[in-house]
């Protein structure tokens, strides 16, 4: 409401201005983003009175959002700028809808806080198509009460997978309704375990599958051991996301973006604690695929592109990133905002869990591989299905090798 009044006011004031541009902005997941987007738009328009931001009605989720963008592009009514899932901007790039951003980027991106790791989130074949706006990686959520009941403590919480499996088995044995550990059989989680072991899903030029390496087998083995040694069930993601806040699940590997939701869900019941992923390989070989959102430019109108870039630069600036971190719980994608305590020092003092998660992003962030081509999304479902087989007792090595073959065939790598 305020926004529309402000927009009206700005429109009246800017009536005499020379270049009066309106940008249509698309975003998804209103449950997380609605307030944040309104605050960002207000702040941007206050700084740029000649540009009006018009937010499209949000899409339910990132997948629905991309579908809508594709439909709108077919109809010629696509917005100028879009916030999309970090794994989905490649769908737009593949259809030549996302505009390259390289000529807008400053000479020295590091100086404005765009580190190489963060730029890599939106880069493909040496061209920048997207800029990360919010980031999340896989972390472990822990219920300290259950850990204590199982004879452990948060002070000497295990830092390797063997220790976690041992602890989870003890938690699982507490009670019939209590589960030890849970992680979704899902492409992104698998890529995270893979990265923690120093593996990569594909070669750099995306011409072959590489997750059938020892790192890949080790990543799949974690699923197998969680199930066989720590009694992990095949309950669905929704079920697990209810079980953890309800206090019936000891350890849950999940996206750091769910932090606020879990903390709220756990409430006074227990002191939800975030623990970083155990890293197995040497630091230089490790990266964790980064979820979250990125922003892409869709307009090909030169004049609008400049205004769009102004908006993109703004939402990736330390000031806007501060807003995003404080209102969504996502990790920032601008290095300056993390390095300079004047931005988020107070926030981290109050949210130690967020500091753990954001430190992990800053240290290990890497691109979330989207498999190329028409079958790219379908492959992720096949990966999820095969991981479930490992959870149900299949041999990890055989499963991963089979999966790699299937994936190569689907993607046409043979």
């Amino acid at each position, binding site marked *: 409401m305020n926004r529309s009044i402000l927009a009206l006011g700005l429109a009246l004031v800017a009536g005499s201005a020379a270049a009066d541009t309106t940008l249509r902005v698309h975003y998804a997941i209103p449950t997380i983003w609605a307030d944040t987007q309104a605050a960002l738009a207000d702040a941007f328009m206050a700084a740029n009175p000649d540009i009006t931001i018009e937010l499209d009605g949000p899409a339910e989720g990132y*997948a629905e959002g991309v*579908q809508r*963008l*594709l*439909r709108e*592009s*077919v109809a010629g009514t696509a917005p100028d700028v879009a916030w999309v899932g970090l794994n989905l901007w490649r*769908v*737009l790039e*593949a*259809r*030549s*809808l996302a505009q390259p951003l390289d000529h807008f980027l400053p000479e020295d991106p590091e100086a404005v806080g765009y580190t190489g790791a963060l730029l890599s989130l939106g880069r493909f074949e040496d061209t920048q198509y997207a800029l990360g706006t919010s980031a999340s990686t896989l972390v472990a959520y822990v219920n300290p009460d259950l850990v204590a009941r199982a004879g452990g403590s948060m002070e000497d919480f295990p830092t390797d997978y063997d220790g976690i499996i041992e602890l989870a088995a003890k938690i699982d044995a507490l009670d*019939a*309704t*209590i*589960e030890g550990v849970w992680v979704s*059989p899902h492409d992104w989680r698998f890529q995270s375990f893979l990265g923690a072991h120093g593996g990569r899903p594909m070669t750099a030029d995306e011409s072959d599958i590489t997750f059938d390496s020892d790192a890949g087998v080790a990543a799949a083995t974690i699923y197998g051991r969680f199930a066989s040694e720590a009694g992990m*069930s*095949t*309950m*669905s993601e*929704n*079920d697990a996301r*209810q*079980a953890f806040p*309800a206090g*019936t699940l000891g350890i849950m590997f999940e996206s750091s973006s769910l932090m606020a939701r879990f903390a709220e869900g756990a409430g006074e019941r227990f002191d939800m604690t975030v623990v970083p992923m155990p890293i197995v390989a040497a630091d230089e070989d490790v990266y964790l695929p980064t979820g979250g959102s990125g922003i892409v430019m869709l307009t090909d109108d030169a004049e609008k592109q400049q205004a769009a870039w102004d908006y993109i630069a703004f939402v990736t600036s330390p000031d806007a990133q501060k807003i995003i971190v404080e209102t969504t719980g996502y990790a920032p994608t601008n290095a300056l905002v993390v390095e300079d305590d004047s931005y988020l020092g107070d926030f981290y003092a109050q949210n130690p869990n967020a500091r753990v998660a954001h430190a992990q992003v800053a240290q290990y962030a890497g691109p979330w591989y989207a498999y190329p081509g*028409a*079958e*790219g*999304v*379908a492959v992720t*479902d096949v990966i*999820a*299905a*095969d991981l*479930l*087989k490992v959870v*149900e007792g299949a041999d990890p090595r055989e499963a991963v090798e089979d999966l790699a073959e299937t994936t190569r065939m689907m993607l046409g790598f043979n």
Partner: protein
Amino acid sequence: MNMRESMSTLLLTGPAALALVLCVFLPVAVVFVLAFTNYQIGAPGIGWVGLDNFAQLFGSRMGRNAILNTLTYVSIVIPASVGLGLLVALGLHALARSLPRVSEMLKAVYFLPVAATLVAMAVSWQMLLHPSLGLVNTWSSALGLPAPLWLSDRGLVLYTLSAIGIWQSVGYNMVLFLAGLAAIQPSLYDAAEVDGATSGWARFWLVTWPMLGPTTLFVMVVTAASAFRVFETVATLTKGGPAFASDTIVYALYREGFVYFKAGYASAITVVFFLALLLLTALQIWVIERKVHYR
């Protein structure tokens, strides 16, 4: 018919016919064409692939899995939903004579799932069937029974969805059967009684079942059509998982088209599904109608 009359007839039917062509036939035709291409939503290019999409549906493991899952679901839901609908209708019909109030109330209870929004109901089901927190497993553990993963056990999920499908359609079938029962001439029951059909069972086979023939056919067609189209429960409760164990044809169609963006392949599934349903309905109408309308 003179010229003026033809003109006014044309004027009356024309707009609706035009709307039908533009809004129904044209899109269907587009889907039929797309089914033979590799079109992806939003893609700049489009290529003719002949029957490849159909070969993929029937030849691939995923395609066959979706077809098999749908057939399993349908073969559980149709007989169970029609049978239970009939049973409930018979019970309520009999109850209406002795306890009309209770019968009316139960009727409303049975009809509730039909009137309720399925997506909202799916959320309730999800909560009820939660492996550790849900009411179903809480009770079954309390009674010392196993607490299965209703919606995330690959071997179980299809049956859970079938049960929900039955729960959802029994009420509607019940209402149709009640209408059918009300239309049976009371004198036929008297005749059966006089003819020596003294047990309820004998009267059912001699009068009720044959007289409900047309109703049963209609109920079967309606139930089959809705069972084959099962989608909302799959989309909200399982997303076709775990590991495609509850992937059905319409969900696969949604998945391929709107998650994988493979419009061509999704169109091919649509075409196959459309033709299959058309064939099924025609078969039921043409073959069975002759047998149940007693002409």
